[in-house]
């Protein structure tokens, strides 16, 4: 049976698509899955950097499409983790260098030899997005709890449904529990209520992500950090397991009781 092709997309840029793709690829490979990650952000190649594989690139996806090399020659094996491979984007061409059909064919070829094919989509709703979703069995939408990101996610969910790939599942990235508690950030329930879509995972904000990118070693390689656990939980959910969401991010609608409790706690700590 061929593997599952999952496109990771967002509409808005900068919400963490590439970080999520890299970490899910690692997390799935750690579960003994064969995973191929494809960077379709042609002209703005980055997945290789986040995965720490940029030194090993010889050929890229445009070379494959143009017949300059075989697909297997362009794939980079991750030496740290067997079963993990990357097909890098080209840095010199633009989105029109490949067609949705070509990406779909490459995805199918990779799905024949892998359990999962993860496609990292470029930002935007134009050609690059069409390329990235063409071959998808499932689409995962990444958003942050910010208004602009949620609005873009809503738009992209509509486009995914129009492309017959819907409804997709949602990852909420960079939740800051402190800000949620203070009432300065939309919580999981708020975002889900707006977007009316199934939740796949919630990822806490963690500055270690930047350190991990500096080092070229995705945090999913670790075990203990909450953010690492969040990625592993998503990997398990993609494998069909029923994993509960981390309790800290399951902020239930505030009850009168908790509101009163907080009120009195605030009073005790004196006026601010």
């Amino acid at each position, binding site marked *: 049976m061929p593997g599952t092709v999952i496109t990771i997309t967002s509409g808005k840029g900068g919400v963490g698509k590439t970080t999520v793709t890299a970490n899910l690829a690692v997390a799935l490979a750690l579960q003994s899955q064969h995973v191929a990650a494809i960077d379709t952000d042609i002209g703005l190649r980055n997945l290789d950097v986040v995965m720490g594989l940029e030194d090993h690139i010889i050929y890229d996806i445009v070379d494959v499409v143009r017949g300059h090399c075989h697909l297997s020659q362009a794939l980079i094996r991750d030496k740290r983790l067997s079963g993990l491979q990357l097909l890098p984007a080209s840095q010199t061409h633009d989105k029109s260098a490949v067609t949705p059909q070509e990406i779909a064919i490459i995805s199918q070829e990779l799905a024949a030899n892998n359990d999962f094919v993860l496609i990292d989509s470029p930002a935007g709703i134009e050609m690059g997005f069409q390329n990235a979703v063409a071959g998808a069995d499932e689409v995962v939408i990444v958003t942050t709890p910010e*208004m602009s990101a949620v*609005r873009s996610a809503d738009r992209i969910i509509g486009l995914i449904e129009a492309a017959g790939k819907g409804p997709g599942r949602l990852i909420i990235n960079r939740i800051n529990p402190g800000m949620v508690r203070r*009432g300065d950030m*939309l919580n999981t329930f708020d975002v889900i209520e*707006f977007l009316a879509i199934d939740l796949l995972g919630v990822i806490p904000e963690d500055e270690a992500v930047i350190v991990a990118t500096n080092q070229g070693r995705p945090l999913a390689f670790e075990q203990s950090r909450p953010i690492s656990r969040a990625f592993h939980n998503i990997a398990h959910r993609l494998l069909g397991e029923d994993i509960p969401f981390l309790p800290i991010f399951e902020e239930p609608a505030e009850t009168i009781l908790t*509101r009163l409790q907080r*009120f009195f706690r605030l009073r005790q700590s004196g006026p601010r």
Partner: protein
Amino acid sequence: MEILTRLFGRRRSSKEMAKERLRLILVHDRSGIPPELLHRMKNELITVISKHVRIDHRGININLEHSDGLTRLVADIPIVGARHGTSERPGATRGR
């Protein structure tokens, strides 16, 4: 909940502001109606209504809303009185 919040004098959280704004933004986005068209429809509605009755322009509120899976154009147009000579009902309030 609102009453409690007010009672305790807590400021309205920025999240609540975000939710309110986002709700409106998404209603507009999902309707697919460009702002220019909505603006034109509003003006035409007002023109038609004021042909027949006198309206309070400051109190006009015409907007898209979303409920029960439907997008609605909801118009709240306060009527001050019937326009002289065009009232269909002879007994209706006349201006002045």
